[in-house]
C-alpha cells in the first residue's frame, strides 16, 4: 500500500502541487509573510513543494532539505511558514488520495493517514531541528557577547584600572565580576581598581555581598578596591539594609574615586599654570 500510494502521489504531483500552491497563496494574506515580495514568495513556494516531493520520492533526500532550510533561516522566514506549509501539504495530499479512491472504509482511511504522516513527519522534524539548531547557536553567541560585556576591565593608566558595571547583576555575572577583577588586577599589575556601580539599578544584599567579597579578594592580592558611583538612593537602601561598607573605601563619583587612586599611586593632576603657558608660547614663538 505505501508504494502504490506513493506512486499515485508522485504521478499526480502536478495536480497536488497546484492545489497546494493555491492554498499557500491564500496564506500570504495572513500577516507573517506580508513583508516578503510576491515574486520571492512564489519562487520559494515552488521550491518548497519540489523539496517535499523529492523527499517523498527518494526517501530522505537530506541535502536538498538542508539547503532549503538554510536559505529560509538566512532570509529570516518564520518557522510557521514551514509548519503551515507541511500541514497544508498533508491535507491537500490526503484530499487528493481520497478523491481518487472510489470508496474508502475506515481501516483504509487510517492507513492512508498514517502513510502520509510518515512522509511529512520526517520533513517537519528535520526542518524544525535545523531551525532550533540555528536559534541555539544564536543564543549561545549572544550569551558569549553578553559575558564579554558584563564585567569589562579598563586599564586607564599604569596601576589604575576601572570596572564599570551597567545593568542587573545576577549570580552568574557576580562570579564573572570576581574572576575578571582578580585576573585583570594581576594582568595589568593594578594597584587600585575602581568599581563603578552608577549603572546598577538595585544593590541588594546579594550584590553587596559579592562586591564585598570581590573587594576583599582584591585586597588579599595586594591591591585596593574603591567603590564609586553610589547614587544617593542606593546609599540609603544600603544603610537601611544594614550593610557595613566601612571596611573599604567608597566615593560618590568616579572622578573623586580617580583622584583618590592617583593619591594612592603617588600621583596628582597638575594644571599648566599661566606662567608655564607663557613659557610655552615663548618657545613656540621662537621656533617660528
Amino acid at each position, binding site marked *: 500500500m505505501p508504494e502504490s500510494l506513493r506512486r499515485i502521489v508522485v504521478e499526480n504531483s502536478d495536480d497536488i502541487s497546484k492545489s497546494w500552491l493555491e492554498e499557500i497563496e491564500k496564506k500570504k494574506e495572513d500577516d507573517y509573510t506580508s513583508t516578503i515580495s510576491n515574486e520571492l514568495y512564489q519562487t520559494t513556494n515552488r521550491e518548497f513543494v519540489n523539496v517535499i516531493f523529492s523527499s517523498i520520492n527518494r526517501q530522505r533526500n537530506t541535502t536538498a532539505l538542508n539547503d532549503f532550510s538554510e536559505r529560509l533561516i538566512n532570509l529570516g522566514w518564520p518557522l510557521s511558514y514551514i509548519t503551515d506549509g507541511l500541514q497544508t501539504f498533508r491535507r491537500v495530499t490526503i484530499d487528493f488520495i481520497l478523491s481518487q479512491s472510489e470508496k474508502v472504509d475506515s481501516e483504509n482511511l487510517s492507513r492512508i493517514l498514517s502513510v502520509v504522516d510518515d512522509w511529512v513527519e520526517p520533513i517537519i522534524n528535520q526542518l524544525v531541528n535545523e531551525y532550533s539548531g540555528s536559534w541555539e547557536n544564536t543564543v549561545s553567541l549572544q550569551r558569549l557577547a553578553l559575558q564579554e560585556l558584563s564585567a569589562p576591565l579598563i586599564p586607564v593608566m599604569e596601576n589604575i584600572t576601572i570596572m564599570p558595571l551597567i545593568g*542587573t547583576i*545576577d*549570580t552568574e555575572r557576580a562570579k564573572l565580576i570576581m574572576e575578571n577583577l582578580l585576573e585583570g588586577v594581576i594582568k595589568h599589575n593594578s594597584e587600585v581598581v575602581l568599581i563603578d556601580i552608577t549603572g546598577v*539599578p*538595585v*544593590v*541588594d*544584599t*546579594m550584590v*553587596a*555581598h559579592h562586591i*564585598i567579597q570581590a573587594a576583599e579578594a582584591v585586597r588579599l592580592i595586594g591591591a585596593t578596591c574603591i567603590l564609586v558611583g553610589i547614587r*544617593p*538612593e*542606593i546609599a*540609603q*537602601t544600603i544603610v*537601611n*539594609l*544594614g*550593610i557595613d561598607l566601612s571596611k573599604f573605601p567608597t566615593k560618590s563619583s568616579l572622578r573623586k574615586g580617580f583622584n583618590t587612586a592617583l593619591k594612592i599611586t603617588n600621583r596628582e593632576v597638575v594644571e599648566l599654570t599661566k606662567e608655564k603657558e607663557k613659557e610655552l608660547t615663548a618657545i613656540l614663538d621662537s621656533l617660528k
Partner: protein
Amino acid sequence: MSKTQSCVHIKKEWDIVGARQMGREKAKELGFGTVNQARIATAISELARNIYLYAGTGKISYEVVNDMNKLGLKIIASDDGPGIADISKSMEDGFSTSGGLGAGLPGVKRLMDDFDIESEEGKGTTITAIKWVRK
C-alpha cells in the same frame, strides 16, 4: 481596604528582576519618590531571592491599599517551601543559613513601614510588607 491586585511568579533567578520591575512601576504610579522606589525594589529583591533560594518557587503579589486616607503599596511574598524554623532568629542582623550577609529580612523590615511574617515549618512562608505614600 484592598483595591487592585497582581502578581509575579518566581521560578528562576531572572524572575526576581521581573518582580522588582513590576514593584517599581507600581510604586511610580502611586507617586513614590526615587528613594522610596529604590527601597521598595530592594525589599522585593530580597523577598523574591529568599523564595528562589529557600523555597524554590513562589510568588510576589502587589496590592494598592487605602487605609484611613493613607495610600500604600502592599507586597506579599508567599511560598509553599520549607518554612522558617526560628522566625525571631531569621530577623536578627547577620543570621543566615546560606552563608549570606543575613541582612535580607531585617533589611526589608527597615526598608518598608509595616512588616509581618508568617511561617510554618514544612508548610511555607508568607511575608507581608507595606510602604505608605505619606506617613
